[in-house]
């Protein structure tokens, strides 16, 4: 019994096995994430009521909040993959990690960018040293560290393990950084509007936000799987199964 479970695990953890299995997930991930995105965008932008104080400008949170969620969650995905690679030497985990790093950095940038767009009508300026934005900026730096470290190494094996160590150190420190930035912000609290905490939002705004968060999670999973598959093909381009795959493509 246990043996069979391991067999299953090994098949999934081997790059060709994952490539084959994940191919079956793609239509489902693509379909559900695009459908939820469509529902969330239309609901949030067209049907949710305008905010009493901020008018329509608040609607950027339908992009900003899910992106911030995924930016942080993406770091943990990356670090967990790094740990699996470091401890059990699972090759696939390194592929996941290398795909998750730029993806997470992009989401963090999106969160920062949307946050600053939202800041203009709200605070009258594109950049405010708000706790949330500052933490997001530090997170972006952490991501960029992992991305650049991987590029700096000539050897892929070394790069993967070095990035894993860095990501794990970052993981331990992220809660400390977030808490300290919150604390710092409370010291210098300016008299501006704080982002409304989610639970106290009106349900008509909150529900489309939940849909968008869910859609972003699925979208993230979809893009991650696509990137992982592409990276597997690059890394295994010399392997027989990839050549067979390419041969099939040509003959079709």
């Amino acid at each position, binding site marked *: 019994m246990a043996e069979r479970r391991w067999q299953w695990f090994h098949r999934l953890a081997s790059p060709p096995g994952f490539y084959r299995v994940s191919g079956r997930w793609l239509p489902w991930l693509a379909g559900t994430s695009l459908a939820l995105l469509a529902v969330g965008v239309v609901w949030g932008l067209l049907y949710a009521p305008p905010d009493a104080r901020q008018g329509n400008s608040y609607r950027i949170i339908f992009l900003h909040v899910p992106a911030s969620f995924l930016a942080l969650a993406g770091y943990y995905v990356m670090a967990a993959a790094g740990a699996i690679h470091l401890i059990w030497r699972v090759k696939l985990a390194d592929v996941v990690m290398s795909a998750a790093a730029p993806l997470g950095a992009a989401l963090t940038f999106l969160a920062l960018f949307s946050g600053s767009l939202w800041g203009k009508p709200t605070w009258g300026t594109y950049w405010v040293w708000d706790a949330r934005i500052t933490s997001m900026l530090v997170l972006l730096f952490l991501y960029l560290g992992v991305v650049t470290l991987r590029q700096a190494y*000539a*050897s*892929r*094996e070394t790069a993967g393990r070095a990035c894993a160590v860095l990501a794990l150190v970052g993981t331990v420190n992220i809660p400390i950084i977030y808490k300290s930035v919150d604390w710092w912000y409370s010291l210098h609290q300016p008299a501006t509007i704080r982002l409304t905490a989610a639970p106290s939002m009106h349900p008509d705004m909150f529900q489309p936000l939940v849909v968008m968060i869910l859609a972003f999670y699925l979208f993230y999973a979809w893009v991650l799987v696509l990137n992982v598959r592409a990276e597997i093909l690059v890394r295994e381009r*010399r392997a027989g199964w990839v050549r067979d795959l390419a041969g099939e493509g040509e003959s079709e």
Partner: protein
Amino acid sequence: MLPSSPPLLAFCALSFERNDRLLFERVEGAVHGGDILQVVGANGAGKTTLLRILATLLTPTQGELRWCGGLLPRARASYLAELAFLGHVPGLKPGLSPRENLRWLAGLFAQRDAIEEALAAVGLAKWFDTPCAQLSAGMQRRVALARLALTRARLWILDEPLTAIDRAGVAVVEQLFRSHLQSGGAIIFSSHQAVDLPGVKYLALTES
């Protein structure tokens, strides 16, 4: 030594691959106490890489290493306690004298307290307190070799130990090797030079 006892270090089916470039594959060998193994091969054949793998500084892409029958890296602690490795660069601080260098190394490895004796044995009696930066490359290598005689390592892994060493020095090194082998130790080393010792076995790396 019983004939049935496992070799000190055995390695089988070692292959190493970097960025899709296969450096070598299916390399195997073993050393028992009293064995001396010379790794030979053209430049770029992977001699240094192989020695670094044997010293657990690098992880092979495939294959396994066994120390006294125990699989590495699990047996790493007992392995490191009996391993002496000398790399391409001798591992000495240029700002410290030979005596000071051997002293800090004594804090890291099990080492006999006979530093001056060992330095004198490799012909450095006059240079105990000269900073290593002022010694020639060959003399620095002798300092590093002097440390080998002080450790209780049973296995020596030496990357090009004869580089920069003059003819008189080679005789000193051979004497060092001989007494290590006689006391039941084993040596794996790489060199383009042949050493004048009986029973040297060869491991040839050819480019794959």
